[in-house]
């Protein structure tokens, strides 16, 4: 009896192993790819917006692609800088910071919204607020986005700096976790003004917000590849991303990431030079992400 039981159990174990082994090899033979996203939105929202893209890339590269949301912009920059993630979406400031700290990484594609690869930030206040210019912000409470956010903190700080307004002139300021909170906090009356991307402002404008000032145009978000990825994979990724808008499901995937995102187009590092200059100005003023 004992002999027979062992024989049966052995056979079953082998069968189960074969089943799971062949199954996983049949779907994705290569190791999985990590798509790193900076926490510019809530995790839920980021997960919702990027899951279709991850699926698309997985099918194109025949590899499993997972989303990894960094806990902060700094962590996110470090992750790509240390090649902890295989692909990363980087805000413009984050890219500039990452390149300055860790060196350049292969550029895959940049956002093209409304036919352009650039975007702007906005200084906002409640529509019924008396504030109409940046200089009026002195003595007011101000909400920033993440400290490393291009349009949540760095470019607006540059704009305030230009107008001679320092955070010390403010009645108070806070770095909120994302730009949506900045909009909502202004609406809820927690702050008198806030800095957000123009796109985010557009979403909340009808709830009772107005733009006091708009930032200069800056090259938009960019996908970069890990330096560890083989060239072939990088090419495949670039090809997949740049040709996305021509795919049947491309428009849907793009609009899910950002409403006005029309395509992903080839990027050049030089296109971030104006932002590098802004960051240099801020750095000189002692303002760093």
């Amino acid at each position, binding site marked *: 009896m004992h002999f027979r039981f062992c024989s049966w159990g052995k056979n079953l174990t082998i069968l189960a192993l074969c089943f799971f082994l062949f199954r996983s090899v049949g779907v994705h033979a290569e190791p999985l790819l990590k798509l790193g996203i900076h926490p510019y*939105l*809530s995790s*839920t*929202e980021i997960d919702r917006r990027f899951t279709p893209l991850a699926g698309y890339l997985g099918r194109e590269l025949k590899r499993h692609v997972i989303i990894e949301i960094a806990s902060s912009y700094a962590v996110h920059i470090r992750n790509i800088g240390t090649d902890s993630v295989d692909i990363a979406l980087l805000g413009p400031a984050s890219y500039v910071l990452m390149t300055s700290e860790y060196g350049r990484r292969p550029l895959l594609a940049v956002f093209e919204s409304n036919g352009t690869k650039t975007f702007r930030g906005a200084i906002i206040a409640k529509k019924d607020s008396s504030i109409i210019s940046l200089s009026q912000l002195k003595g007011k409470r101000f*909400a920033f986005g993440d400290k490393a956010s291009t349009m949540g903190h760095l470019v607006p700080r540059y704009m305030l700096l230009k107008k001679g307004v320092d955070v010390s002139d403010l009645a108070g300021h*806070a770095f*909120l*976790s*994302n730009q*949506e*909170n900045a909009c*909502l*906090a202004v*609406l*809820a*009356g*927690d*702050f008198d003004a806030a800095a957000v991307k123009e796109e985010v402002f557009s979403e909340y404008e009808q*709830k*009772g917000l107005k733009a006091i000032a708009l930032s200069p145009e800056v090259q938009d978000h960019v996908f970069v590849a890990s330096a560890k990825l083989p060239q072939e994979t990088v090419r495949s990724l670039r090809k997949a991303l740049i040709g996305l808008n021509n795919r049947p499901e491309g428009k849907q995937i793009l609009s899910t990431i950002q409403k006005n995102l029309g395509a992903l187009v080839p990027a050049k590092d030089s296109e971030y030079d104006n932002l590098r200059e802004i960051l240099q100005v801020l750095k000189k003023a002692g303002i760093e992400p």
Partner: protein
Amino acid sequence: MRRLRYQGALLSFIAVLIVFFLVGGIVIIAEQRNALTSMVLSHEERDLELMADASYEALLKHDYVTITSFVSRWGEKHQSYTLIRAIAPNGFVVAEFARPATSGIPLYSLKKTVHQGDQELLSFEITGDHRKVMEVVGMLRNRLIFGSILFSLLLGAALWYAMKRMALLPMEQEIEQRKRAEEELERRVAERTVELKQELVERRRIEQELLDREGHIRLLLNSTAEAIYGVNARGACTFCNPACIKMLGYETEQDLIGKNLHEMIHHTRTDGTCYPEAECRINNVPKNGQGCHVNDEVFWRADDTSLNVEYWSHPIVRGQEVIGAVITFIDITERRKLEAQLLHAQKMEAVGTLAGGIAHDFNNILTAIIGYGTILRMKMGDVPFAVNADHLLEAAQRAAQLTKSLLAFSRKQEIVTRLVDLNELVSRTGKLIIRLIRQDIVFETVLTGGELGVMADSAHIEQVLMNLATNAGDAMPDGGRLSIRTERIALNAAYIKMHQYAKPGEYALITVSDTGMGMDENIRSKIFEPFFTTKEVGKGTGLGLSMAYGVVKQHKGYINVYSEIGKGTVFKIYLPLVKSASIREVEQAEAENPIPRGSETVLVAEDDRSLRRLAKTLLEEHGYRVIEAEDGEDAVRKFKENQEQVRLLLLDIIMPRLDGRKAYEEIKKLQPNIKVLFASGYTEDLLSIKDILDQGLHFIQKPMRPRDLLVKVRTVLDR
């Protein structure tokens, strides 16, 4: 049916149980709902507290996205929330989750404000429905209903089982027994019903049969010409048929039913004497139980006239008792009358036969007397005693006339009928009658228009009229009116029945009426009898009307007399009319020429020797040669012997051995052209005479006058 009633009771019981449990359940549900509602509210408040607490950290970081996400997830997880709002102190709705409310579910609202110290950070408002409560209540209700029904059914079934075992089963057994008994009873009733129906059918059949029989009897009673009635033991009428009512002259049966019929219709005898009820043969039938047949009594009609009846009475027996009698009667008045007429006719016939027989012999004798007397008188010449011979001949002629009347009455005389216009005959006779009757009698003839053709012997009819006129004259000694009227009349069946005439048809009626003394019924009934006379002895022969009767009968006619004392007498003579375009009566008055003579040989065959000799003598005296023969055979033989000489045969019709006609037939074979003259004094064979006349042969009636014989012989020879 009873089972259904029990099941109904069981169902009612279960229904009551269900209702009881349901009411209880409703109370429980209501209480449970209230408790659950309180519990849910308490739970939701706690949840709200938790939500507020959970949001506190995020609020401190102004992390409204988390709050929004939290509200959204919170709402999605809780189906009972219809609205969750996170409201900033400035009224801005930071987050909102809403779903359409399900109608019919009660709602509740809760609010919780998050503070940081005294500072209000955010308020959470929740509007939710008691979905869970309703679900629990619904489930509870369903379970309660199901449980109530199940429990009721189980309890009902258990109770039913117990009740059935303990109470219903014995009751059902008893009911079953009763049912069986009822079925048995019903079966017997059904059987009896079938029997009763059969009996009813049989009874109806019998009733119908009885009705049919009654109908038949009623039909018989109603249709029969015989009168039928019934009496009970007391003599009271119990029923009667229409013929009875009609015959007795009543109108309805109510006129008779219940009445004592003896007193009404049977009270007097035929002779007019009282008929006591005690002697009534009808009423005695129930008493002695014997029927009777009576034909010599009379019944009395409602108008107090009587009718001769013949009746049969039979007892009606019921069981052993005779309870009445049924009487059938017929009116025999007419029969009595006919019987009387028949009797009279038979009497007349008998008298006629007697008279005819005597007259025949007398005729022969008188023929001899007159013949020889005439010869004697002729030979006497004018001698003084010749007057005696004249008286002798005159008396003999009267006797011959008398004999002729007798023969006429007995209808055994020869009549020679021709088509005669009766109007002319009456008119001619009237002229003679005027001379016959007295001056104090007014005579008139009233003749109908046109001709009245009858087959008649003019001489005889004239004689009848003369006789009637003579009688009328005698009946009017103090003068009066005598009229003879002719008319045409049709005798129909009814008239004939009333007057007992033989044949219906067209008749010529001669009415001879006088205004004389008339006669009573007794005389009237005997008036046509021979030798019956009311005249004094020697004045009448009593044969005038007898002769008239005989002559009219011989002419197939009828004579009738109506008379009332003091009012006169009417004779009516009916003679059958003959339809003819015109009447040619060739009746020439005989010229009284001298007696013709001859020299031819005549063979005279006559069995009566004296008559044979008389003929021989007469003929020889007038130049003829005569060969005599005693009978037919002798005549044939003599003719053979003298065939060349004989020119005429004078043959008596009735002779021994070979009669006149057969003798003539024999002789005719020898000489077809031989002439013949038949003679007969006794016309018993009228058919023979008719045949003779029809063949164009000649005939002479005996007793014959010598002159008649000689004229006839000459006439035949010269033809």
